[in-house]
């Protein structure tokens, strides 16, 4: 059907009005101004449409250009041709030698980043001192000399060589004296180089000068037995050890070696066989060794000689002329009992004295001879060559200088302008010398006075060898190309001596080919390569002969008594004793921030030396710790803050040398005050004692101590027993008298799963001597920032491991210790002090209080029993640190790596090369703490995986454990019942610090046992 309906849109259409018809003609009812836009105003508008793309293009281009600011380009250079031995990410180890001790140097991508002990080293069997650990940082010291210097300005080596050779030739021609002054050298090659040099310049003479010398012992052995040697001591063979001021676990001769020996008679293994040595220490200041002694008696320097004479009398049953009783009754008593014990332990006894006085050492020799020590605890036939300095020779050299008899003075590894006690006399005398030459790698005090400075390599850049003890030869090989334009001193000497062999490497090779290699049964290139791998040749030791002392002692006793009498201080005067601090030693490494920030093991002071005075004297004088006093002795004065030292003999002051450098570098300069000028020269040796007086300056200089509360308040964090009790019941005082308690019995929580590994640690408080090497090892391994003196004062040091040191006191006639502050305050006698050291680090608690409180899960538990930190997640609320009962968490208060206000000497790209690339550095605002060297655990697991075998016990070592000469730290897997650590933790002596909180700490401590004898009556 058709539809004819019509629809219309509006009435207009229906009506067909004229307007409608008109409008309907066009497509659009309203006219659209297309034409207008295309031709007229549209294009001539301000921003015409067609210009849109132009504007857009220009705009984007301009913005892009503006954004193209030059960013600094850091070129990373890949190994285009990869050295065969270097795999990025895999460390290489090279054997070398640090001061005669065999070491392994860890290098990553061609740069040495850590020094570790060589497990076959005869001294510490893999242990290493804090100084050795820190030595790697010196390599990256940007203040080392970058070029040789001639008359104060940088010069090339050829100019220096030309100048020196010309001068030496002229001096030789004139027949004038040449003196080569060095510290002790035991390197066969270096000694040969010096011999060659002297051959070329016959007027030359080699003088050995040690700032801290053992001339007294060497001379005494010459006098007593006709052998001018430093004996090799065997503390491991001694059941009774008596030391008069010898800090043999610390700074005396060979601390690491003696620590290993000493601890072997006191550690868990020894205790389990019911054996423990007895150690009695008589000393003025509190030394590291004194803190470990079973009985310790403070004596004044003036009493030391008398005490040794008394001991001789008691042992020999004779009376030396002029002998007198000690004024101090308890010491006098002790000497009598000690004598009996020594005699009872004949053949297994050892008496040592720290004095550098020949007469004293002769008397000690006599005592040791009576005790049958020669051939057992003292070995004169395999002598130590670690120190050979001759004090008298050096003093004579200074006199020669003064008389103008020396035309050339060459200084190798010595710095007499700083450490000679008459520094001014030396400087004045030196000015008369025509050619003054220093091999120092720093522009140090002596280099400043020299007209030629021929900077030596750092030992990690050097070739060489060492023979620190008879029959033990080690090799030094470089682990990096020389960083600066330095040259090895031996090389320089060879050049100046116009030796046919100028290259020192070839020279060393020749030395070894001519005899040394053969001693180890090696030969040729292959033998040399074997040597480079093993690092050492250890020839069989000579049989230690037994020596009998047979000289007359009357004169000796007389000398000692006169000397002692001259040390007696009058009213208001004090007896001053100068010693070496554990961290800084003789001051050669004063520019090392790791060492400056290492707390002194006894005082816990960093970045300073101080005047240690007994607590009783401090109270008497109404001084406060940190008050600066002016100490005057031998016509020399220093201003030093005072420290109240428990155990310091009353009426004495102890001051450490090694501080107060003026040209050590930015770290070491003006840290503390120089105490060397308190030395004196007497009877052919340097003496370390003097009579001093002091006045209060009224100035205060608070000490930067990492621990300011020194008593453990009777808390069970420290558990001690004496050996008699221990023998009856090994669990005594450990809290395990009824077996190990299970605090976790009623726990509400499920334990963490630890399917394969459960990493834990055992620390033997009886083995730990508190030396602090672990602290520096941890610094190096874990990139721990140095914060500086002010920040330590604010109690913000960053060390992941610290050693807590607590004092406790005994009252006369009472056996129990006084450990609480308010009781200690009431004491008047602070002489009977006992000390305990406790390494404290993250306990990796299984119920970690830090983990539950972190709002962002930045610290969590691993499936291997570790408490881990995710730095990137940390927002820095510090709640974890507050909730840590052990206070081992460390917060990055500032951006220590990159904050110009805290120049901790790592704020430059070069020094940062020392960083361990396996450990990330931490930004400010995040928390950090001991990770249980998780990078080492991972590396160990990975290695085992590649070898398709399970990880072996002992394969992974913590940095702290590895460097510990005392083997106080054992680390391992608790899931393996046969692991070393599992066995150690099962010991009756094992307890956990704050175990009653049931935080389930992962580090077990073993009770400190003292072999206390009833010496005091």
């Amino acid at each position: 059907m058709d539809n004819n309906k019509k629809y219309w849109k509006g009435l207009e259409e229906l009506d067909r009005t004229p307007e409608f018809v008109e409008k309907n003609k066009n497509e659009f009812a309203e006219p659209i101004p297309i034409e207008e836009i295309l031709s007229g105003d549209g294009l001539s508008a301000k921003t015409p449409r067609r210009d849109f793309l132009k504007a857009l293009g220009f705009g984007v281009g301009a913005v892009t250009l503006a954004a193209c600011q030059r960013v600094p380009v850091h070129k990373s250079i890949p190994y285009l041709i990869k050295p065969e031995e270097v795999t990025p990410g895999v460390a290489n180890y090279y054997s070398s030698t640090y001061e005669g001790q065999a070491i392994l140097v860890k290098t990553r991508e061609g740069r040495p980043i850590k020094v570790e002990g060589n497990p076959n080293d005869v001294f510490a069997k893999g242990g290493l001192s804090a100084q050795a650990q820190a030595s790697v940082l010196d390599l990256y010291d940007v203040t080392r000399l970058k070029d040789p210097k001639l008359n104060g300005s940088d010069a090339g080596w050829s100019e220096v060589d030309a100048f020196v050779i010309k001068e030496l030739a002229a001096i030789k021609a004139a027949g004038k004296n040449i003196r080569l002054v060095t510290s002790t050298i035991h390197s066969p090659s270096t000694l040969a180089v010096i011999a060659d040099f002297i051959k070329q310049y016959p007027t030359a003479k080699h003088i050995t000068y040690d700032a801290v010398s053992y001339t007294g012992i060497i001379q005494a052995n010459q006098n007593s037995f006709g052998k001018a040697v430093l004996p090799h001591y065997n503390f491991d063979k001694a059941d009774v050890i008596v030391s008069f001021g010898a800090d043999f676990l610390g700074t005396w001769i060979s601390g690491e070696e003696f620590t290993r020996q000493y601890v072997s008679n006191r550690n868990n293994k020894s205790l389990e066989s019911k054996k423990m040595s007895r150690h009695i220490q008589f000393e003025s200041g509190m030394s590291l060794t004194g803190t470990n002694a079973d009985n310790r008696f403070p004596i004044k320097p003036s009493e030391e000689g008398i005490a040794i004479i008394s001991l001789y009398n008691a042992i020999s049953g004779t009376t030396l002329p002029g002998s007198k009783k000690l004024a101090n009754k308890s010491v006098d008593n002790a000497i009598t009992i000690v004598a009996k014990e020594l005699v009872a332990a004949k053949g297994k006894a050892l008496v040592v004295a720290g004095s550098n006085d020949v007469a004293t050492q002769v008397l000690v020799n006599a005592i040791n001879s009576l005790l049958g020590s020669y051939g057992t605890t003292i070995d004169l036939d395999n002598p130590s060559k670690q120190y050979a300095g001759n004090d008298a020779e050096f003093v004579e050299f200074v006199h020669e200088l003064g008389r103008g008899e020396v035309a050339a003075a060459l200084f190798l590894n010595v710095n007499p302008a700083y450490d000679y006690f008459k520094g001014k006399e030396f400087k004045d005398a030196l000015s008369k010398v025509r050619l003054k030459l220093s091999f120092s790698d720093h522009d140090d005090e002596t280099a400043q006075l020299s007209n030629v400075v021929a900077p030596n390599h750092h030992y990690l850049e050097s070739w060489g060898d060492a023979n620190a003890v008879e029959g033990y030869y080690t090799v030094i090989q470089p682990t990096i190309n020389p960083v600066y334009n330095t040259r090895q001193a031996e090389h320089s000497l060879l050049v100046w001596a116009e030796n046919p062999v100028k290259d020192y490497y070839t020279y060393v090779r020749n030395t070894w080919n001519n005899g040394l290699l053969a001693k180890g049964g090696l030969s040729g290139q292959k033998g040399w390569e074997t040597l480079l791998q093993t690092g050492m040749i250890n020839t069989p030791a000579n049989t230690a002969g037994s020596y009998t002392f047979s000289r007359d002692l009357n004169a000796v006793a007389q000398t000692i008594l006169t000397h002692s009498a001259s040390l007696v201080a009058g009213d208001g005067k004090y007896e001053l004793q100068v010693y070496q601090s554990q961290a800084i030693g003789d001051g050669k490494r004063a520019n090392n921030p790791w060492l400056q920030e290492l707390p002194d093991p006894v005082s816990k002071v960093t970045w300073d030396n101080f005047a240690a005075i007994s607590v009783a004297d401090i109270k008497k004088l109404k001084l406060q710790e940190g008050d600066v006093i002016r100490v005057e002795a031998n016509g020399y004065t220093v201003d030093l803050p005072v420290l109240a030292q428990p155990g310091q003999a009353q009426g004495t002051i102890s001051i450490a040398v090694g501080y107060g450098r003026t040209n050590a570098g930015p770290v070491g300069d003006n840290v503390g005050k120089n105490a060397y000028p308190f030395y004196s020269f007497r009877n052919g040796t340097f003496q370390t004692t003097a009579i001093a007086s002091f006045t209060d300056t009224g100035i205060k200089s608070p000490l930067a101590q990492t621990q300011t509360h020194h008593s453990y308040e009777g808390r069970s964090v420290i558990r001690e027993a004496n050996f008699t009790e221990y023998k009856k019941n090994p669990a005594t005082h450990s809290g395990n008298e009824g077996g190990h308690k299970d605090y976790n019995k009623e726990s509400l929580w499920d334990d963490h799963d630890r399917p394969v590994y459960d990493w834990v640690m055992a620390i033997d408080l009886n083995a730990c001597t508190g030396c602090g090497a672990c602290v520096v090892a941890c610094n190096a391994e874990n990139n721990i920032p140095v914060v500086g003196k002010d920040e330590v004062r604010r109690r913000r040091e960053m060390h992941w491991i610290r050693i807590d040191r607590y004092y406790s006191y005994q009252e006369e006639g009472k056996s129990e210790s006084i450990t609480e502050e308010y009781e200690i305050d009431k004491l008047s006698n602070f002489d009977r002090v006992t000390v305990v050291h406790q390494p404290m680090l993250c306990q990796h608690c299984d119920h970690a209080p830090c983990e539950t409180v972190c709002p962002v899960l930045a610290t969590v538990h691993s499936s291997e029993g570790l408490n881990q930190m995710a730095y990137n997640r940390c927002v820095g609320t510090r709640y974890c640190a507050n909730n840590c009962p052990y206070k081992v968490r460390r917060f990055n208060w500032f951006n220590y790596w990159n904050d110009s206000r805290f120049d901790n000497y790592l704020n430059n790209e070069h020094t940062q090369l020392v960083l361990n690339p396996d450990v990330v550095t931490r930004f400010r605002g995040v928390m950090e703490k001991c990770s249980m060297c998780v990078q080492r655990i991972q590396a160990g697991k990975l290695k085992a995986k590649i070898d398709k075998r399970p990880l072996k016990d002992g394969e992974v070592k913590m940095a702290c454990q590895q460097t510990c000469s005392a083997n106080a730290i054992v680390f391992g897997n608790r899931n393996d019942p046969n692991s070393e650590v599992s066995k150690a933790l099962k010991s009756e002596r094992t307890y956990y610090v704050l175990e009653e909180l049931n935080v389930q700490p992962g580090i077990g401590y073993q009770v400190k046992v003292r072999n206390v004898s009833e010496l005091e009556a």
Partner: protein
Amino acid sequence: MASHSESIIREPLITGKNITYGQITDDILRPVENMPGKAWWIGFSVASLGALLWVVSISYTFWFGIGSWGLNKTVGWAWDITGFVWWVGIGHAGTLISAVLLLFRQNWRNSINRSAEAMTIFAVICAATYIGAHMGRPWMALYSLPLPNQYGSLWVNFNSPLIWDVFAISTYFSVSLVFWYTGLLPDMASIRDRATGLRRRIYSVASFGWTGSVKTWQRFETVSLILAGLSTPLVLSVHTIVSMDFATSLEPGWHTTIFPPYFVAGAIFSGFAMVQTLLLVTRKVLGLENYITMFHIESMNKIILVTGSVVGVAYITEFFIAYYSGGEYEQYTFLNRFIGPYWWAACMMYGCNVLMTQMMWSKKVRTNIPISWVLSIIVNIGMWFERFVIIVTSLHRDYLPSSWAMFYPTWVDVGVFVGSIGIFFTMFLLFIRVMPSVAIAEVKLLLKSASEQAKKKQIAEGHLEPAHVEFYKDNLIKFDSIDHSEYEKA
């Protein structure tokens, strides 16, 4: 309304003669509708300088690191968290007054709830700044929120009291803000109705189109009641959770179960003290004596006395439990408060909070304005020291004596704290210029039933027990805003 009169024994909540609804509006809006006076300008200048100090100190901290403060390895919190808890505590009075007292039909709250709530908001803002500022990496603060992320199931640690804190504080802040602003709506409308031009437009937006119809009022009342119900648990929960920051830890001196009630009481204590401090000044300067009367002042003093005594009992309990527990470390911590190096802080805490407030048992003290004002400040000094003692004195000597240390504040610590007070007062002073500092609508509710003039009318009408009237008149003696001559005549 007039038919529902209040008992004559109750003290009047509004004083003054011939008060009308119009006059209430005029009186309360006087500071909002006029240029500020000299006193305000002086106050504002000082407060702004304080705020500036805050900006400088916080910027310094952000630029260099938390090390700018005096904290150390042993004392990881000190002035920061002390300030945080102090401000949160102060921020408690507002909600208590507006919510709990509303539910309990305590009509006297009507005159003070507005300022108290505003104070709450500002105090919580001050507290919140510390949450950000005390972080080592505040730019990573978002990690403390349970946000979806690319790390799979990486959540916040719901075990951590700090996370509870984040939720508690943010909830409290948002609810308080909504409650406060809801109450403001009719008053904003009043301002709008009296204003012209731009001002009118601003207040028009701010009043959310309030019409004043019966329906609006009805909904307003309902919302207020619901919000009051919601806020009431918050009064208890916020400081309970803040106290758990301490109570759930292992630190001796922190690890105690008494903390939640102890902290809540302390918070109300300090909050009321702060309200008192502010209102005594505001009342005088803004001439609001007729609306904030001696009755209000005395009531608040009574609450301060009660909560102060609760806190005192908590202190004693703490000491008893430390003794009774036999816990070696806990015992030492409490002994250390008195014999340790921070003994003076403990003396400030116990002295200011307990000993001084006990003076309020005396009516003379409660009704003496200068003494009340000084006491209210002493209370907040004491409460600051309470937190300082709990935080610093506990931390500085905990388990291992080797780590015992002292805390010394730096200028930045002081700057941040003093600055936060500046921020607080800046905000408060701005508030009284732009918003009515007393709830106009709610005060008007009282005019016909609980005002002095209504009571006078009642007396005039007779039908009252003369003894009751005498009692009423006796009570009026303490009022400083009443013309007493009138009553002597009567």
